[in-house]
């Protein structure tokens, strides 16, 4: 049985190097679902369309999630709708990163 909290913890280790916050705190992970076959489906976004880090971040997400015990596969979908905005950053992370 895959613990969903373990997946979120794993994703918290992936940092957007430009902003210096992890993807969970940044609000880039829109949804996370575990299928009956223990495959994890993730819908995420990036901070700006055409973000040069998009491949690195999706690779980081796949790698981090695959390292969680029990995960057999991962599917990452990057969407731009709804567009990301700084209001999606967790309030406590927003304060520490100096973001309004």
């Amino acid at each position, binding site marked *: 049985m895959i613990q969903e909290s373990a997946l979120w913890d794993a994703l918290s280790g*992936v*940092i957007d*190097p430009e902003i210096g916050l992890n993807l969970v705190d940044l609000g880039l992970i829109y949804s996370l679902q575990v299928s009956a076959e223990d495959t994890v489906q993730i819908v995420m976004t990036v901070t*700006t369309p055409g973000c040069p880090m998009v491949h690195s971040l999706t690779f980081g997400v796949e790698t981090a999630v695959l390292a969680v015990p029990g995960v057999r596969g991962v599917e990452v979908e990057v969407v731009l709708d709804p567009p990301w905005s700084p209001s999606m950053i967790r309030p406590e992370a927003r304060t520490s990163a100096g973001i309004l």
Partner: protein
Amino acid sequence: MLALRPGLLAAYHYNQEIIAITHLLVLGFLLSVISGALYQLVPVVLETRLHSERLARLHYGVHLISVAGMVVMFWRWDMKQVGHFGSGLAFGVGLLAWNLGRTLVQARRWNPVSFGVTSAIVWLVAVIGAGLALAAAKSTYELTGRTDVQPMLAVTLAGLEAVQTFLARFEPLAVMHAHAHLGLLGVFVLLTCAVAFRLVPMFLLGEIQSPRRAWAALGCLNAGTLAVFLTVLTQSPLKPAAGLLVLAGVTLYLGELRAIVRARRRLNLDWGIRMFLFSQALLLPTAALGLALSLPGQPLTEFIGRLETAYGFLAILGVVGLAILGMLYKIIPFLVWFASYNHAIGRFRTPALHDMYSHGLQAWGAGLWVAGLVTSLAAILLGSPAPARLGAFLLLLSLASFALNVARILRHFFRPRLQPLNAPQLTSTPRTP
């Protein structure tokens, strides 16, 4: 070179050493960085892929050899060889224009950024053409009139002599100034403005506040580039009108940039962004000085000559040089991070870009650059070599601090700092400079 020969800055700028140094700086440093940045940025801006990396590599090799040869030949004032190496440079720029042109046609939608970048590439081709024409006009052709030359060579010679005859209609200093404006305004300033509309909102978590104002700024700057080139070339009394057009473009651009910065969501401005914004603010006094120098009826006195040199110095090292140094603090960490940590993300805790270099050193570098700029400008206006040497040393110190920071960044390339994922995150938030 300026530190070794400070008298050059105190003299009038139309001499072979200053022309050689200017081309070393403009083509060797600024154009090299900008070409590399374009190959990186255009695909990002257009959300597509670069047409050919192989062509970009070929361009890099051709560019290095051509610029080195051109600078040496300018120093010797061998204009025929300048033309030969310049043809190599033109070939390289042709490769860049083809490569980026093929990339640009893939654009899904056009915006102020893609328009600005495209027009800057067009101006780049034009300025290289103008430079080659200048070299052709200043060369002598020993084979002229001989009957034993190959037909191809005879046609080429006839073409070069036609260019020479055409340019002989214009005053040589006006031709050189028109060429310089075409390059600085059409290529560097326009490109910086276009790129700022993409990168500043991206780094500050903001967005363009008025696309109409952004389009208008780039439109005015494009029209202004053409108008300045033609009126300077022909020594037209309409030069101030062209200058006003540029000033209008600069004012619109700075108005939009200010609005973007004010509406940003990221409060902290790092020193890279501060350097860039300060350099862009210098556009206003530079454009105003250019406008003042364009007013009719001014005799070319010693002081006016010094003002012209100060104008060029401020444009190259104040506006463009400082903007590029600021942006390099954003680009180099990204490229090194990508090479060193891309494979490790998700498996290890990777550093943030702002943790890869010293912020103190960066702040010192920015301060030294501004001090060097002010001191050099004072030296130029006073026509005095001693402060010119001091100014050059301050600029050198600034570059040394930049080099030290680049070395710190490159250390991550050779010895990546990887922490286990469960280790506490030491620095994750940007420090307030």
